[in-house]
């Protein structure tokens, strides 16, 4: 595992660093706001929060354009934000409003924006893996040079779809990056219990593709590893498994008592090891941003999250006819 944080990330411009920090803050503040609103009973359904894992989504999506695709998971808000989904549209979706990115029909677990290459959060564990290689197949057949990224959990690596998808991506040399968010848990089961392998990236060896495990709390580390993996895919050199060791700050879903977590480890993860705190330190040490610059970004993000909530609360619910629209394109 790579733990050296305080080296300058190669090719990260000041503009990029600002974008990255803003996106990380957006995810953190969005999730914290959703956590609070859910606790007040104002949003229904199942909600899985991404807070703590920001460096993974943002560090990877920093290398993608709107033409590149990502597939996501039940814990999809972070991927959506990192891929450029509109905050108002996302929040309104979680509120079930007509102005939501999916007209309120999908909710937290199904936020998508195909125009941004975001192929949807997903309620089915393991479903994103084959979907990602499909996007890779499109890129290969159409020779577009686009890349597909699959975000998936450590728990999903135990699902058959992981092995089917990685094998096919390998034999067809598809432009895919499999980004494993290894947060140590699948629901209330630990990775150590549920997986025989020590690391998910170890599977790269048997499938004869590139693989790497990085500290997923370390933005520059994720950023650099993702740069290599995405470049490899774009050049037609095949897929990579990029495993990012991370932590989910909240429960599996909102309402989870988290009895299975080690309290010391949790404390460390959300304080000294926090991805945002560490990236702030990095930005200051590298003299990319000052404390004041950071504060400015934080405040601007807060305003945008407040606006997303206001927008959602004021948005109408979908029209009754929407119950049966969009089932087919034509019928």
């Amino acid at each position: 595992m790579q733990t050296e944080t305080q080296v300058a990330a190669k090719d990260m411009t000041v503009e990029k660093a600002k974008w990255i920090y803003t996106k990380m803050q957006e995810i953190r503040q969005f999730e914290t706001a959703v956590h609070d609103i859910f606790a007040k009973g104002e949003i229904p359904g199942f909600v899985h929060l991404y807070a703590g894992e920001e460096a993974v989504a943002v560090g990877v999506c920093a290398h993608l354009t709107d033409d590149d695709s990502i597939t996501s998971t039940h814990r999809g808000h972070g991927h959506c934000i990192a891929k450029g989904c509109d905050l108002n549209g996302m929040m309104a979706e979680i509120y079930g409003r007509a102005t939501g990115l999916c007209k309120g029909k999908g909710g937290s677990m199904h936020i998508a924006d195909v125009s941004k290459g975001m192929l949807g959060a997903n309620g089915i564990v393991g479903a994103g893996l084959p979907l990602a290689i499909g996007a890779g197949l499109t890129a290969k057949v159409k020779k577009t040079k686009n890349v597909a990224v699959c975000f998936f959990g450590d728990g999903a690596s135990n699902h058959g779809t992981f092995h089917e998808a990685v094998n096919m991506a390998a034999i067809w040399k598809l432009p895919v990056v499999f980004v494993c968010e290894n947060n140590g848990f699948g629901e209330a089961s630990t990775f150590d219990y549920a997986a025989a392998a020590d690391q998910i990236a170890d599977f790269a060896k048997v499938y004869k593709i590139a693989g790497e495990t990085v500290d997923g709390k370390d933005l520059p580390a994720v950023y650099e590893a993702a740069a290599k993996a995405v470049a490899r895919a774009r050049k037609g050199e095949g897929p990579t498994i990029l495993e990012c060791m991370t932590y989910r700050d909240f429960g599996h879903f909102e309402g989870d008592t988290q009895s299975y977590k080690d309290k010391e480890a949790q404390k460390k993860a959300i304080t000294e090891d926090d991805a945002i705190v560490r990236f702030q330190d990095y930005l200051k040490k590298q003299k990319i941003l000052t404390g004041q610059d950071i504060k400015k970004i934080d405040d601007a993000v807060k305003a945008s999250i407040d606006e997303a909530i206001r927008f959602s609360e004021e948005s109408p619910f979908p029209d009754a006819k929407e119950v049966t629209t969009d089932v087919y394109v034509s019928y």
Partner: protein
Amino acid sequence: MAVKMSYSEAINDAIRLAMRKDDDVILIGEDVAGGAEVDHLQDEGAWGGVFGVTKGIVEEFGRDRVIDTPIAESGYMGAAVSAAATGLRPISELMFNDFIGSCLDEVMNQAAKFHYMFGGKAKVPLTIRTIDGAGFNAAAQHSQSLYALFTHIPGIKVVIPSNPYDMKGLLLSAIFDDDPVIVFEDKTLYGMKGEVGEGFYTIPFGKAEIKRAGKDLTIVGLGKQVYTALKAADQLAKKGFEAEVIDPRTLSPLDEDTIINSVKKTGRLIIVDEAYPRCSAATDIAAIVGDKAFDYLDAPIKRVTAPHAPVPFSPPLEKLYMPTPQKIIDAFSVMVGNKVFSAV
């Protein structure tokens, strides 16, 4: 003696009774205990299932018989099928019925077919417990009611308990049945309290329950929709029409006689089902009655179901999506040739 228990507690109770009675009964699935190999949770477990339904069972029976699995439905469901064929009596939990896509082969082509394909020489005494039901704002991939999918398949029995008493007796029947059985637990019923028999009892499959007698209309309500049917019946009674409400309790086998005998008496049938309407249990029941009791019908059979669309997330849309007492009354008013009831 009866005791008050929730639907969820009735499941927990049935599983414990079965596991006490027979060492071959095991419970297997994702987080059915939770916290496997976490020191302080080794005995007590963590979640006990995503809704806490199986909480505490690991404490009584230990981790050899209460087995947390990786997220590998095809793997552990297949294992449960052949564990059943080789001497165990597994209760395998498929967390949400919507996840059946990950293990349909194991259920449809393996569990359901062994007995037939092997000339009656293999048995698969497997119970699959799974969660269904809309009305929880859980969106399109966590809200379906897929019992028709399994009713379609010969070789597996299908159980849809609507209350704690039935749940306990039907689940115990399922566990000790020598065929594969899938039991649907409606997530919105978990908290429902009711009288449950104390100790071990079973309810036979293929025996519907008449929840309310009536002479003017038969309403068959599937799963929790039996309550929608009962509410409609109350409102119709105020207008002078007596509806008979039937809970079939199992879809495969289906108690055709109770439904047909009721229709012979009432001449009218409405089936209430929150599942999709095409090739559904409601459609199946309509076809059976059309086939076997056509001459007794005074009006076309009506189905009050979900539309042919996935379950929407947005709460107001999901409300519109579901059957309601008013939709049943509207259907009845069409059947009797006037619309006066729509204002009930």
